[in-house]
């Protein structure tokens, strides 16, 4: 299914989306409904965070986008062309890291990249060595490039997998949990790498569980749960949908809680020297004045902005168990 004609004309997509799926559905052999009627739109030039609990269908979606598995129903367009039919024309423009790196242990890191590059018939063999060297450099593996891949650490393998996605200038990068196994420096480097690529105009589609990471780099995000898309849009809009919480730091927590309730705050929670609540409708300056008037010694007073994590939990629920 990956060998359709490479000559189909490129069609402009409405809204210039790099990935657009319509009713994309995958039921694995064995009956597991992994992705259910997905309508995903990834705008060109965005850094798109793809979120969801374990088993929510992120990797399955990515496999369909990359033409590795055939959708049960629905359509997927990548770079404006239908997948998996246009694989041969689309995929040279796409760098991918899917479910972690996979390497030939008996080959050196450099030889692994040379092999993956040779698999792409549109890759110029004359520039192969220089492109491999610069990809290794980009992920900080120049010194370890000659080492056998089986002797790599988890993070080094992950970096080599990333280097494989960066062998050519790409229009789209699909990264399935790219910072898995990386040290803090590695994570920071990946973040700055993603920003750098995005500023060059590459669209980055990034799945991750690390929400603050997504919040730091992504412009857009989508949230999956149990194979369904729950929401998608600009990151700022997603967390704006969840209201922040009023936080009062004080040694007099009992009094503070009582005053806050009187002032109309809901869901008041006392934890050590902090009282948090849903902020009431009225002016917060008056709430603070009321606290002071009641003799509450206020150390800190303010509204904590909702994090993406709050938004995520609000959307996907608190439950820890993986849905079957």
């Amino acid at each position: 299914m990956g060998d359709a004609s490479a000559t189909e004309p490129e069609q402009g997509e409405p809204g210039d989306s790099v990935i657009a799926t319509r009713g994309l559905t995958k039921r694995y052999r064995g009956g597991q409904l992994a992705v259910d009627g997905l309508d995903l739109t990834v705008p060109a030039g965005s850094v798109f965070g793809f979120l969801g609990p374990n088993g929510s269908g992120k990797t399955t979606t990515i496999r369909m986008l990359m033409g590795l598995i055939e959708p049960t129903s629905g359509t997927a367009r990548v770079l404006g062309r239908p997948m998996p039919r246009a694989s041969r024309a689309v995929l040279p423009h796409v760098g991918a890291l899917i479910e972690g790196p996979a390497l030939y242990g008996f080959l050196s890191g450099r030889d692994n990249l040379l092999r993956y590059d040779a698999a792409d018939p549109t890759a110029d063999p004359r520039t192969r060595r220089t492109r491999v060297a610069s990809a290794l450099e980009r992920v900080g593996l120049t010194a370890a490039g000659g080492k056998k891949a089986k002797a790599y650490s988890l993070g080094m393998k992950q970096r080599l997998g990333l280097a494989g996605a960066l062998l050519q200038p790409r229009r789209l990068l699909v990264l399935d949990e790219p910072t898995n196994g990386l040290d803090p420096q590695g994570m920071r480097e990946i973040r700055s790498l993603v920003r750098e690529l995005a500023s060059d105009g590459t669209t980055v589609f990034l799945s991750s569980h690390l929400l603050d990471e997504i919040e730091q780099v992504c412009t857009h995000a989508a949230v999956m749960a149990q194979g369904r898309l729950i929401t998608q849009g600009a990151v700022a809009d997603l967390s704006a949908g969840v209201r922040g919480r009023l936080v009062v730091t004080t040694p007099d927590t009992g009094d503070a809680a009582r005053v806050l309730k009187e002032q109309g705050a809901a869901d008041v929670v006392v934890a050590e020297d902090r009282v948090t609540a849903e902020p009431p409708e009225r002016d917060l300056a008056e709430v603070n004045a009321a606290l002071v008037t009641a003799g509450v010694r206020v150390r800190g007073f303010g509204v904590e902005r909702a994090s993406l994590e709050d938004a995520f939990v609000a959307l996907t629920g608190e439950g820890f168990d993986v849905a079957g």
Partner: protein
Amino acid sequence: MSQAEAATDAVTTGPAAGAVRAPRLLWTFGLLRSELLTTFRRWRTLALLGVLAAVPILVGIAVKIETSDGSSVGGGGPDGGGGPAFISQITNNGLFLVFTALAATLPFFLPMAIGVVAGDAVAGEANAGTLRYLLVAPAGRTRLLLTKYAIVLAFCLVATLTVAVSALTVGAVLFPLGDLTTISGTQISFADGLGRALLIALVVAASLVGIAALGLFVSTLTGSGIAAMATTVGLLITVQILDQIPQLHAIQPYFFSHYWLSFADLMREPVYWDDLVKNLGLQGLYAVVFGSAAWARFTAKDITA
């Protein structure tokens, strides 16, 4: 068009920017070259070739020891077909070690080695997860499968030549070389004999085309390299056993191994072509049938590993 874009992208990044672009048809063989390097750099491939090279050495030494008291090797060798006819002549002419070694390795060692390499070809990549990265590169499913089959066929040739060259070397070291007698009793020159040895090696390599296709097909069915290798070698043993059961003579001509030992007919004067042609035709049939099956399976398969 996107291909042109890809090419300009690639060119502008490298130092060769502005250089004239080579035809893409040539670029597409980069995978074949990479595959060749990868296969023959694998420790397992070299070990298999090592075992194959050792067989003629063992046979040569055994014959040398057994005949060191001046007696000749008895005719009751373990091999059917041309085996025993050849083994008794080794002491007179080392070239016969080539025929003996090929007759000794063709029933099991050679096809087993092919089964291992062919069975692992696709399943091994799936097992390691490297298959998904080859496919998103994008290698193209048909191109990848053709490349894999080409490499397995190349391995058939290399494996057979390994046995032949090892046997020729051992034969030349341990025994005299010279003119030789064909099965039909006529004399041919050493040069002619050498030519026939090469021809026989090529026919033996071609005899393995069928199991190579079968192994590749099995390889597309599973995600485990070990399972594919075991299945292919298991099929080989089963067919070899079934080929010995007289009651099954009606279907035996369709077993890929049925005409294997017909290569000995190249040592007749004149050459007896009937079974040789049947063998090559049967191998071609297996290649077409199981090659198509492998293609149908692989191009429609969900790659989730």
